């Protein structure tokens, strides 16, 4: 029997922890509100559900910003299961904004306008995935980590099939099978890790390793299994094969969501694990494998495979799927450079990536609505028919490639500077390789990113194209996404002032 005193200690801990999770409660309440509203008046006016989901997320956003203004140092709550710090709060804000953008571009997409079904389920799943992602970036315990990750995965499996056709169900099924496999591998790794460390926390492994870095084969294998599961979620080579099929099969706005919210949460999870457990310093002694080199090689192969596959894609969505794999590779490079500068480079990159990707997917939705397909060759002649969309797409594609005068260049420039500094500091050749491959691959990227604008401007369409028009609201949305891409090239300090207030040492 537990003593009453023990229980009161626990209850004090819960009471202390409760005020720091207001964002999460808001999201849970909004999920329940959406389900109830869907039952009551979902059939007659689905607009109410849009409003409910948006309101819930806006309140959660305000709660996160409020926490960001008040929380100073890192706070460990719920018996160290959750760590709230400025980094995780910054990412919660970004994730909520990204979900709000998803709801916006969903309202432009055809299937949801025409089918008039599934809005309630769609928005509650979307909110659930956001909740899971926020808990992922805040987790400090493998139980919480796994549950949050599964929240995101389960929601994603369901939401991937929302196109209601054969292709959509096939893609979702593929996703479920691959995902269950990856989760099983990761869970096995976590159980092995528990066997070695006797703890589910993200404890510093360099303290229990021999000479500060040598670990034996079993523990190393457990870590590799956990990392493999995460690689699957953030689509790093060799666990990226599911990405193009699922992205192609899902509705375009959901593809945009998949390429941002779960991916950013997974990347930050990776950063937290690598940072808190000191994985970069470890070496599996029996096969003399340095774990940082393993991560670096995975990033290099991700970049090479993703970019060379992207060249041959005929579908715009599949190309963007490979593009998102390639960007995950770039962000992996930033995770490897575990310095203050590396973290800032990663956060800057994530911010720009959100803007660019939502912009491109928004224009893809407009083009899809106009042409009825997402094949690149069907976009012929759209340069004349949709001048605004084409101009914006050129800007966004240049930014995705990483050329000036766009913020995509700034993001890559900061990233490569960090890698070079790391090479000079540590003298490890893996950083030099990462730098060279990253630079080389950007040239390949230029080739496929500019293929869509090339088809739009320089190929004439056979028939007459109906002009694609934007209403005022859509124009404002597009400006909102593209203007910062220029502004942050000339004034990156505006973003850096915010990012710099995150203290690297306290993570």
């Amino acid at each position, binding site marked *: *029997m537990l003593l009453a005193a023990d229980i009161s200690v626990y*209850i004090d801990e819960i009471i202390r922890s409760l005020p720091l999770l207001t964002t999460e409660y808001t999201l*849970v309440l909004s999920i329940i509100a959406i389900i109830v509203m869907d039952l009551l008046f979902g059939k007659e006016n689905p607009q109410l559900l849009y409003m409910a989901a948006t309101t819930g997320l806006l309140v959660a956003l305000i709660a996160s910003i409020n926490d960001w203004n008040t929380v100073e140092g890192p706070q460990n709550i719920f018996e160290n299961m959750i760590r709230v710090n400025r980094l995780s709060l910054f990412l919660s804000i970004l994730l909520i904004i990204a979900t709000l953008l998803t709801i916006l571009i969903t309202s432009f997409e055809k299937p949801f306008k025409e089918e008039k079904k599934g809005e309630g*389920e769609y928005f509650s799943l979307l909110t*659930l995935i956001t909740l899971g992602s926020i808990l992922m970036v805040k987790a400090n315990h493998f139980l919480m980590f796994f549950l949050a990750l599964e929240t995101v995965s389960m929601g994603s499996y369901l939401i991937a099939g929302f196109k209601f056709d054969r292709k959509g169900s096939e893609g979702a099924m593929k996703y479920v099978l691959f995902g269950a496999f990856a989760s099983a591998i990761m869970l096995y790794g976590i159980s092995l890790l528990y066997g070695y460390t006797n703890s589910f926390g993200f404890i510093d492994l360099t303290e229990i390793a021999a000479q500060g870095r040598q670990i034996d084969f*079993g523990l190393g294998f457990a870590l590799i299994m956990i990392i493999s599961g995460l690689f699957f979620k953030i689509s790093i080579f060799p666990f990226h094969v599911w990405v193009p099929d699922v992205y192609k099969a899902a509705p375009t706005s959901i593809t945009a969501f998949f390429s941002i919210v779960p991916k950013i949460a997974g990347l930050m999870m990776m950063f937290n694990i690598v940072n808190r457990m000191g994985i970069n310093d470890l070496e599996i002694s029996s096969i003399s494998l340095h774990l940082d080199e393993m991560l670096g090689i995975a990033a290099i192969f991700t970049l090479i495979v993703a970019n060379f596959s992207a060249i041959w894609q005929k579908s715009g969505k599949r190309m963007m799927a490979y593009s998102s794999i390639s960007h995950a590779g770039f962000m992996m490079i930033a995770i490897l450079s575990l310095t203050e500068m590396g973290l800032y480079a990663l956060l800057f990159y994530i911010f720009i990536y959100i803007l660019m990707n939502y912009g491109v997917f928004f224009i893809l939705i407009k083009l899809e609505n106009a042409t009825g397909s997402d094949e690149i060759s069907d976009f012929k002649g759209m340069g004349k028919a949709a001048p605004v969309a084409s101009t914006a797409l050129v800007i966004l594609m240049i930014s995705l490639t990483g050329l000036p005068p766009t913020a995509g260049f700034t993001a890559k420039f900061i990233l490569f500077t960090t890698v070079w500094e790391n090479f000079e500091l540590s003298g490890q050749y893996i950083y030099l390789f990462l730098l060279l491959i990253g630079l080389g691959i950007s040239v390949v990227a230029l080739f496929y990113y500019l293929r869509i604008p090339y088809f739009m401007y320089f190929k004439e369409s056979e028939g007459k194209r109906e002009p694609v028009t934007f209403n005022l609201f859509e124009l404002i949305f597009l400006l909102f996404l593209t203007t910062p891409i220029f502004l942050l090239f000339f004034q990156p300090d505006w973003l850096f002032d915010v990012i710099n207030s995150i203290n690297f040492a306290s993570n």
Partner: protein
Amino acid sequence: MLDAGTIAVYSFAVITVISALFVLITRHILHAAFGLLVCLLGIAGLYLLAGAEFLGVTQLLVYAGGILVLIIFGIMLTNRADGKTIKAGNHRVIPGILAGLAIFLLFTQIYSQSSFRDSLRSTDNNIPLMGHPVESLGVEIMTRYLLPFELIAVILLVILVGSLFISKKENDTN
């Protein structure tokens, strides 16, 4: 000389492995389901012998009692709809055996290493028992593991709603 506990562990292990192999080899899908039942019962026995009574009973109730009955019902219903029994086949037998052997060797390598056995034997790995295990489990869930518990509740709710929606018939307008 072997004591009764060791004999019981090994016999449960043998039952589990043989029934799992039977699931793999048999071509009749209903036989495979029954093989799975025996396999799950064997695992429940292993849990009970390892001192995890709660886990063992949960395994019996949820897997052997619930999920497996669901599987058998599913097979019976789909069988009747088609009029003929479904045959399960094995594909890529040789690569499968090779991959299985490789994983087996990998795990023997891991588990035979001294550091893992030491960590299993170390005394601080034994969770101190205060009162009945089910009682302390309940207290822990409502105190230390409150947040994961509540998160699971939210996940189950939304996933249930979502899967009902996905599996709904197309022409069901009401």
